[in-house]
């Protein structure tokens, strides 16, 4: 094998122009692959991270069947305090009880459908990044005094504020189902998250105010949990399920991960994995043709040499190995250069991000934000190396077979 490797290597040097072109194609293709995969993963990861850190949490405890039929009457008892206490026994778990209901938000000029989220702002800050996304004012306060009337506070999204044409300190009225069903609030803060859809539809109240408005005193619809270590989610889900079953045998709440709460988002992860294969597939099919073409040329140029080697007694398996080795050596070098070029770029863009302010509106619709940070995992690096080598072997099989099929007597006299 050593001598065959030497022959393969020297032949690549002998036809260095052709080898360089093929290696360049592999390098560019692989770098582009890494960039596209890094970009796609970064995009999706940001979408997921933003959804998890604003509304989903890594895991949520919901009243039984609330996921299927989100009605405020399907709720958890005791203001969710017992559940929060149970869940926070798990190291690195931060829980916040929420009451979530639908309503209509009205300003002096306009109205808009709204998702009302009642929270304890202090607890919520440990589970959600909404408080950190405030661009003005504060999270809901007990009382906001502006002018003559003292009203409870409410934080709304920037898109909602624009739609209702309100600013911090302005009064808004909420209509909600329930016996009370009506309440006046003052805008205490305006937030802008990376999702314009979220900002357009969500309003935060103090949990007591929301419970009163929705006529479900001391009740919550969910307890959201954020973990310091998201990798421990399966372990935490098992813990939460058994802990709550023991602590609240009558409530039988549902314990759902973010993937279970947002199956479409989870499905996109699977889709991204498929997309990665499609990207690699497209690039490597093109690469395969390049390699096969170069090797076919090489075989045709060296028919006499191969004929001579066969005449000397070189077994066809070794001749096959020789051609495959030339392909593999060429691909390994192209792949290594591709990784050396592409990986630092992807890692750098993962650090500084790609500023897409000009596309900001489109991206925030998907909850991504204005800067995309590329993200690459070990498997994204290893996969193309493996696929490249498999491609190299497959692409070389045809030329190699041509070489093996040569009849020595004719090949030796080939001009």
């Amino acid at each position, binding site marked *: 094998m050593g*001598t065959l490797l*030497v022959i393969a290597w020297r032949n690549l*040097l002998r036809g260095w122009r052709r080898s360089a072109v093929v290696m360049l194609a592999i390098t560019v293709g692989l770098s582009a692959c890494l960039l596209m995969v890094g970009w796609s993963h970064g995009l999706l990861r940001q979408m997921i991270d933003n959804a998890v850190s604003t509304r989903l949490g890594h895991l949520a405890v919901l009243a039984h069947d609330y996921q299927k039929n989100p009605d405020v009457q399907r709720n958890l008892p005791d203001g969710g305090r017992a559940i929060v206490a149970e869940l926070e026994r798990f190291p690195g778990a931060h829980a916040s009880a929420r009451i979530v209901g639908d309503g209509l938000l009205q300003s002096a000029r306009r109205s808009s459908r709204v998702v009302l989220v009642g929270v304890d702002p202090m607890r919520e800050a440990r589970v959600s990044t909404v408080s950190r996304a405030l661009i003005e004012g504060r999270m809901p306060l007990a009382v906001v005094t502006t002018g003559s009337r003292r009203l409870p506070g409410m934080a709304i999204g920037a898109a909602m504020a624009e739609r209702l044409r309100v600013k911090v300190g302005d009064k808004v009225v909420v209509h909600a189902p329930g016996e009370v069903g009506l309440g006046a609030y003052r805008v205490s803060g305006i937030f802008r998250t990376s999702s314009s859809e979220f900002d357009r539809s969500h309003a935060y109240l103090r949990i007591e105010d929301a419970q009163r408005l929705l006529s479900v005193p001391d009740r919550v619809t969910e307890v959201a949990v954020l973990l310091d270590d998201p990798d421990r989610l399966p372990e935490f889900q098992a813990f939460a399920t058994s802990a709550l079953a023991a602590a609240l045998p009558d409530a039988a709440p549902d314990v759902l991960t973010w993937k279970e709460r947002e199956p479409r988002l989870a499905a996109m992860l699977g889709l991204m994995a498929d997309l990665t294969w499609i990207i690699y597939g497209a690039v490597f099919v093109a690469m395969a043709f390049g390699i096969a073409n170069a090797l076919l040329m090489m075989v045709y140029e060296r028919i006499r040499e191969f004929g*001579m080697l066969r*005449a*000397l007694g070189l077994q066809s398996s070794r001749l096959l190995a020789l051609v495959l080795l030339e392909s593999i050596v060429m691909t390994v070098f192209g792949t290594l250069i591709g990784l050396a070029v592409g990986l630092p770029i992807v890692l750098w863009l993962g650090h500084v991000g790609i500023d897409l302010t000009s596309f900001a509106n489109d991206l925030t619709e998907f909850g991504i934000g204005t800067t995309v940070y590329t993200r690459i995992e070990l498997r994204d690096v290893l996969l193309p190396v493996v696929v490249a080598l498999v491609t190299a072997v497959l692409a070389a099989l045809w030329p190699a077979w041509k070489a093996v099929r040569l*009849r020595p007597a004719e090949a*030796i006299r080939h001009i």
Partner: protein
Amino acid sequence: MARRILEAVEATKVYRAGALETRALDAVSIAIEGGEFSALCGPSGSGKTTLLNLLGTLDRPTSGRILVDGEDTTEMGEAARAELRLRKLGFVFQSYNLVPVLSAVENVEFVLLLQGLPRAERRARALRYLDELGLGELAHKRPGEMSGGQQQRVAVARAIASEPEIVLADEPTANLDSKTAEDLLHLMLRMNQDRGVTFLFSTHDPRVMAHARRIVRLVDGKIASDELRSP
């Protein structure tokens, strides 16, 4: 009586190109014995290279049999024929046909590598044969850095280094000038006389014929004469 190394029995070779059939060799029978220094002669198209290719198991006869060292190769698979060539036959081609990316010593070593000789032994043997053929100083040159005559001598070294039963040489002097061709012939003659290496040439070069001790003339795919000459 010397051992029969190669033998063709009623060997016929017909080339087909569409409806056109060309009978390159017509029921030729011939035996080559150990120690010979023989030449297959004849004009172009007489079938000498075809016969050499059949005897060297590089091609298969349309009918008839080819025996190498008494073993019938007619029904042998390609792998077995390659193994037979590796162990028992040496080749020298008209166009030298060295591996261009290997040095002289590596070219000679290559066949020894295929034979499975240990690295140290094959390097020593390759250098010994190159020295013997006056190529010691060129051992580490690649074919592109050598003259045609030097390349052909490396090809001879490669052919005999594997210590085959016979060396088959197809027009070995065709691309060489008179002086180089003469030197090469003397070299091969010396190998024949000193080491007992058997040579069979396919040639129409009078210089080769002048040194050959047996001349087999082919005309239109048939043996026209088979003449033994004293040294």
